């Protein structure tokens, strides 16, 4: 009796707490569609099937799959404001129907389910125009028609000043910046976007600015999906065709569209993708996405098999346990060595499968190449020789990573074609002698007083103005960073660094502070070295990162070597579309030059692992050309 009373009390106390908690329902607070049910069914995700023999009879239920995300979801699904990777995954699942899509190998190809006709015209001024006619009958998830202006809206949203006035900050990408008239429109100098034309209800055109032609990734400029005019804009705001391009109607202003835009951020309920946004549960950090009945299929005509996808935040501390207990079905891009080992053990025990693929990016040391000792290539080389990167990558990734010698990834088709040449790149194998030789060749042969270097202490270099620069490198790293900790022991405190006559001083701060210094290209920046990570996308367009004098050139690679790097990046871009052989050749030349200029030292490139329940079938991704959001379309669930 006493036990019963105690149990009753515990439940009573909890219930009292629930009631006292001001009646917060907490479920689907941003619900777009009613998902309440009088039945009170509990869609439990619990239930462990660990190590059990599969009794799968070949019939898929395809009811639901839960995608575990390691970054926190915010509920702001659109990519223009809060830019979380998990929000973006949800966004990618609810957007689709682009006229051009990339296939499993990364090549950009036409999407026949959407495209009625594509006409490519080379203009007299050197620009190129893509005229797109979409098929009749394409519909958004709410049943409304998809028209040409919905496609153009996506271009306009990505660079309109008004959207920035609404605090959006994640706007333009390379899909838009090469379109003719982009600068004038995005800077507010012109209210029309010259490179865009609304030809008729189902036809629009996009023109690449002549200065960027030829452009190898030209087709990718028409890979934008439609954005519903009805969702984003008040009914009386329209896109108008003029002889100078497309413009918003005169009643378009940040103030006028503000409420509608804010509503669209959190209630993105008119979707074009294989799934549609149903609700966001801020207490479960979960997006609920359900199959879009109006999605006609991707470039292969593939529609979603699984009815519901839940995109759920899964903190790293407990992610493997969540997979084990069935709280999530898929964990993707797991990079931590311990977690990978735990996952592989789970696979061995049964009930789980995994995929493994290389990361299209790397952790790195990034240099400022315009000031301090790191402005000299020999210093950057010397530091590379003084770091045992193989051992570093092995230790940091727990054996699940490799060392790369340039900005490339194994999934890139160019890397595959030039695999042999890549193997021949300078890998800066650990060598104190090579480091000293580089420094001596670079003129680091003096003591502080200008006498010949004594063989101990810090080296100096005589500058053009007659002063002597010490070989002291100021390094800024972010706090709570395990890469920084490992760099301290393997590089900063490495006795060979001192033996080479080099000193590295570390300053630790927040990641935000690191970014502040990282983006500061002025010569007054007190730091020359940073450690962080980077990734590259498809299209592989890196020219803007090496444009001399641009703030995007975060390495501040200047002078002859900077120009050379930039020219090669431009040559890569300005390969004729379809000329894969020349592109790959230009790509390798860029990689080879980069490997010599060495604006960054790649430290490790992870072997990512996806772990998922064995109930999931037909799930294949490589994280670069074909990511998890595309792979889910083909997957089936027992």
């Amino acid at each position, binding site marked *: 009796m006493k036990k019963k009373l105690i149990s009753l*009390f*515990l439940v009573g*106390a*909890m*219930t*009292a*707490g*629930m009631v*006292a*908690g*001001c009646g917060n329902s907490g479920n689907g*607070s941003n619900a777009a569609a009613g998902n309440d*049910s009088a*039945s*009170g*069914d*509990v*869609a439990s995700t*619990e239930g*462990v099937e660990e190590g059990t023999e599969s009794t799968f009879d070949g019939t898929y239920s395809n009811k*639901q799959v*839960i995608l575990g995300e390691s970054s926190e979801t915010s509920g*702001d699904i659109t990519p223009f404001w*809060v*830019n979380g990777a998990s929000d973006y995954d949800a966004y990618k699942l609810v957007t689709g129907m682009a006229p051009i899509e990339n296939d499993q190998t990364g090549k950009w190809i036409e999407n026949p389910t959407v495209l009625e006709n594509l006409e490519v015209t080379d203009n007299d001024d050197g620009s190129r125009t893509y005229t797109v006619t979409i098929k009749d009958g394409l519909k958004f998830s709410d049943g409304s028609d998809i028209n040409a202006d919905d496609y153009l809206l996506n271009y306009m949203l990505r660079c309109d000043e008004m959207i*920035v006035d609404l*605090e959006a*900050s*994640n706007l*333009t*990408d390379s899909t838009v*910046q090469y379109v003719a008239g982009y600068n004038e429109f*995005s*800077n507010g100098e012109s209210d029309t976007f010259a490179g865009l034309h609304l030809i008729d209800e189902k036809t629009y055109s996009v023109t690449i600015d002549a200065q960027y032609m030829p452009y190898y990734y030209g087709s990718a400029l028409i890979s934008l999906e439609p954005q519903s005019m009805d969702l984003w804009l008040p009914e009386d705001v329209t896109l108008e065709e003029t002889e100078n391009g497309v413009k918003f109607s005169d009643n378009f202003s940040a103030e006028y569209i503000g409420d509608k835009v804010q509503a669209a951020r959190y209630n993105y309920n008119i979707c074009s993708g294989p799934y549609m946004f149903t*609700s966001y*549960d*801020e*207490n*479960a*950090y979960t997006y*609920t996405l359900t199959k879009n009945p109006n999605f006609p299929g991707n470039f292969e005509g593939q529609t979603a098999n699984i009815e*519901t996808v*839940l995109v*759920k*935040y899964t*903190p790293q*501390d*407990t992610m493997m*346990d969540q997979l084990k*207990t069935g*709280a999530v079905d898929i964990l993707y891009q797991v990079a931590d060595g311990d977690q990978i080992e735990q996952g592989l053990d789970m696979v061995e025990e049964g009930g789980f499968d995994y995929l493994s693929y290389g990361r299209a990016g790397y952790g790195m040391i990034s240099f400022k190449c315009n000031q301090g000792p790191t402005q000299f290539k020999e210093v950057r080389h010397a530091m590379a020789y003084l770091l045992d990167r193989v051992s570093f990558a092995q230790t940091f990734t727990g054996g699940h990573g490799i060392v790369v010698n340039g900005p490339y990834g194994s999934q890139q088709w160019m890397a595959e074609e030039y695999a042999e040449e890549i193997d021949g790149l300078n890998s800066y194998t650990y060598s104190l002698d090579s480091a000293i030789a580089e420094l001596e060749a670079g003129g680091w042969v003096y003591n502080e007083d200008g006498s010949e270097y004594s063989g101990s202490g810090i080296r100096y270099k005589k500058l053009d103005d007659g002063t002597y620069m010490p070989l002291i490198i100021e390094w800024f790293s972010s706090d709570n960073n395990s890469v920084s900790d490992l760099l301290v022991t393997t590089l900063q405190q490495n006795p060979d660094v001192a033996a080479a006559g080099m000193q590295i001083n570390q300053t630790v701060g*927040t990641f*935000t*502070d690191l*970014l*502040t210094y990282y*983006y500061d290209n002025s010569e007054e920046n007190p730091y020359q070295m940073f450690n962080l990570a980077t990734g590259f996308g498809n299209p592989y367009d890196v020219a803007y*990162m090496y444009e001399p004098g641009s*703030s*995007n050139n975060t390495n501040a690679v200047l002078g002859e070597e900077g120009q050379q790097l930039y020219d090669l990046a431009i040559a890569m871009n300005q390969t004729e579309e379809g000329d894969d052989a020349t592109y790959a050749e230009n790509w390798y030349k860029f990689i080879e030059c980069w490997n010599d200029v060495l604006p960054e030292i790649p430290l490790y490139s992870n072997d990512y692992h996806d772990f998922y329940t064995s109930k999931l079938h037909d799930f294949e991704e490589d994280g670069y050309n074909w990511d998890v959001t595309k792979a889910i379309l083909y997957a089936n669930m027992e």
Partner: protein
Amino acid sequence: MLKYVGKRLIYMVGVFFVVSIILFILFNNVPGDRALNQVQNLRGKVSDETFQLRYQEARDKLGLDDPIPIRYVKWMGNLLRGDFGYSSFYKKDVIDVLGTPLLNTIQINIMATIIALAITIPLGIHCAVKKFSKFDNAIQVLTIVGYSMPQYIIALVFIFIFAVKLGWFPISGMNTPNFQGTGLAFVLDRIHYLALPVIVMTVASLGSMTRYVRAAMIDALRMDYIRTARAKGLREKVVIYSHAWRNALLPVITLIITWFMNIFMGSIVIEQIFQINGIGKMYYVGLMNQDYDVALAVNMLYCVITLISNLITDLSYGIVDPRVRINK
């Protein structure tokens, strides 16, 4: 009494402003550029000129070029009007960011506080009455262990045992994702999810309160009036609960009231580990992302709660112990 409360309220307002000035100065002197933080994502996406323009706009909007006193007056003016600022991380008003987390924190803390008090007070009294018995010794050892163990260790151990191994509770979250139920089904689902964090919070707080109650009761039971009461032939229950407990309550009341006021304050550790969308977690996220409007708003909330808590504690002394006069 009213005069005393009035005086205290005036004092509270003074303390509130002093604390707000200190916090404001501290937050505004943390290294880092908030304006740059807000527009950082525009880098590489707009021209250098546009970026500089946006950066300057952000500085103007945040008033970063104004002297600190002017910035404080503006901020406090907005705060008193109910405008807590704008979250640079979530890109929406702070009041919209903190609303739901505050309710969630209250919800979970009420559960934990009620359960913990219901266990610790009888347990502490029982241990005091049965002082040095085997039961008391066992509880003393357990409470020392519980008291010494960090909350996050308790949380991880409990997750491993009750969620991973036994599968009784979910590992984290506040409800089943895509939960379709309403009414009782919803409440049961919520209880299922919150049970483990509530148990961890309860266990983590058992040690201190149990030992506190026990010590206060032991002191009270040593008093002459207890001996007198027993000599008068009063029943033991009356002696313990009516005479001893009432007198032992005075030192304990501070702790109890603090506990109840803490229901508005989130537990950063618990909310992080169990992924509870609570005020403590928002505070942590705010600090980690230099989202100072959020962090300052939470800090000011903590300040107000602490001031009110102190007032209630002082007033309650007079109620519990008639010897304490609070009307002067």
